[in-house]
């Protein structure tokens, strides 16, 4: 076995001696670079390898698979040990699947298209924009509960569709987690801008990403231990600093 003898994860993984990690299809920048998690490049890929190492699993024994959100929450057997694709931990989801301790706390950010770059980062100003978001993310409830837009928001399947809608001038603004928003404005949507962020800690239920596991997973304790150790040692913060852009320049929305 690749596990250190007697390690807590030994015998608890899907395939004995391997650690199977699922990511999205595709996996997005900056969470995974070039859709190639095996390289360990990108925030989530790096975290996965760090956790594996912490659990005494060699990098060579980390196996990557792809999964959709739906496959992650299906009632039957899963084909992964953990699933990392920016899953926000929510109480409802937690009833169906297990989450590890959070590995990242994501502030929400407002991305606006070329036509609305001058919007002031205030609640009053952004309310009247035409809003969009990715329908499968926790941005949706945030949008409805915090921003309460004046007109019905449009919801999309993924970031690419939101980008296209902004380009076609069908929406003015969209709500994303900050790293995604920064990436989109810098690389994907010409003339767009991140005009503000919501403070991550201020809201009553902050958006925290956790690794998703099968309900009642025996592995959860080990993963949590590993994440706790990484947080303790500052390794997690270092990975974040390496792969996620410094976001202090984005103003807070008042």
């Amino acid at each position, binding site marked *: 076995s690749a596990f250190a003898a007697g390690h807590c994860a030994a015998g608890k993984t899907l395939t004995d001696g391997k650690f199977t990690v699922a990511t999205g299809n595709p996996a997005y920048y900056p969470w995974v670079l070039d859709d190639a998690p095996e390289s360990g490049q990108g925030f989530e890929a790096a975290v996965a390898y760090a956790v594996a190492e912490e659990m005494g699993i060699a990098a060579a024994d980390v196996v990557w698979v792809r999964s959709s959100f739906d496959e992650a929450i299906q009632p039957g057997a899963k084909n992964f040990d953990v699933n990392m694709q920016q899953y926000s931990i929510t109480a409802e989801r937690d009833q169906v699947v297990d989450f590890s301790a959070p590995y990242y706390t994501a502030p929400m950010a407002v991305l606006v298209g070329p036509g609305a770059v001058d919007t002031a980062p205030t609640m009053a100003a952004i309310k009247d924009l035409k809003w969009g978001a990715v*329908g499968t993310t926790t941005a949706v409830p945030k949008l409805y509960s915090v921003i309460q837009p004046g007109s019905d928001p449009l919801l999309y399947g993924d970031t690419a569709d939101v980008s296209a809608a902004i380009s076609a001038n069908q929406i003015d603004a969209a709500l994303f987690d900050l790293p995604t928003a920064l990436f989109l404005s810098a690389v994907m949507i010409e003339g767009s801008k991140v005009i503000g962020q919501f403070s991550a800690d201020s809201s009553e239920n902050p958006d925290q990403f956790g690794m998703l596991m099968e309900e009642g997973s025996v592995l959860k304790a080990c993963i949590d231990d590993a994440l706790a150790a990484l947080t303790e040692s500052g390794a997690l913060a270092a990975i974040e600093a390496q792969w996620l852009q410094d976001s202090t320049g984005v103003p807070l929305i008042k």
Partner: protein
Amino acid sequence: MTRREKYDAAQRRRSLVIAASSTALVILALIILVPMAPGWEKVQSSFFNRAVLAKSFPKLLDAFLVNVMIFAWSAPLIGLLGLLIALARDAKSPALFPLRLFGAAFTDIFRGVPVILTVYLIGFGIPGLGLPRPWNSPYIWGSLALILTYSAYVAEIFRSGIDSVHHSQRAAALSLGLSERQVMRDVVLPQAVRNVVPSQMNMLIALQKDVSLLSFIGPVEIFRQAGVFKSLLANFTPYVGAALIFLAVTIPATRYADYLMAKQKRERR
């Protein structure tokens, strides 16, 4: 009561008993056997979760209005365009060859290209050419994409209906001095349409559900709404809720259409 009547009555009774008992049996078997499967509880809580249903249902109903709206303006236009394309494909005179060509090209392309591409291409692409609001609305262009795609399907069905009317009917109508258009309208189409009602009901039902494809370009209709709930609650029950709403519309509609057809059939022979 003649022996024929007696026999018929007995048959009716017997078949009712069989129908009732076999239906009951199947339902009983499902109710008893399925829950015995080891994973039933998990499946039940994923797909048939009362709390989730109660929570999501009102919002699903709201979102369904969007479907109804889009359906309501698309369906008649699809019927009309589909019919026109079918007529174009059926044009007889050699001078109308370009029309036939156009009809064939239209159906080939819009049927062959995946709806979702048509929705993206027209829903994002045309507004992307630089239309100002509100003319770039995804509702407008998304509906257009649906209309074009479905017209192609509907046209083929009309065409099969037109083909299934025996050519002697056309000859008889022409011999009365009717113009091609009158022949089509008064003689061929009424018979053709009657022949394809079930197939067109297929299309109506499929359309009602494919309205959901517009959600790819923004509109929050019942499916997107169910998908949002699914993501948030990590539970598939909202889809079951959506299905219930669909069934509540389609089953009465199809039953009624069937009833009308059967009645007409009885009356005419």
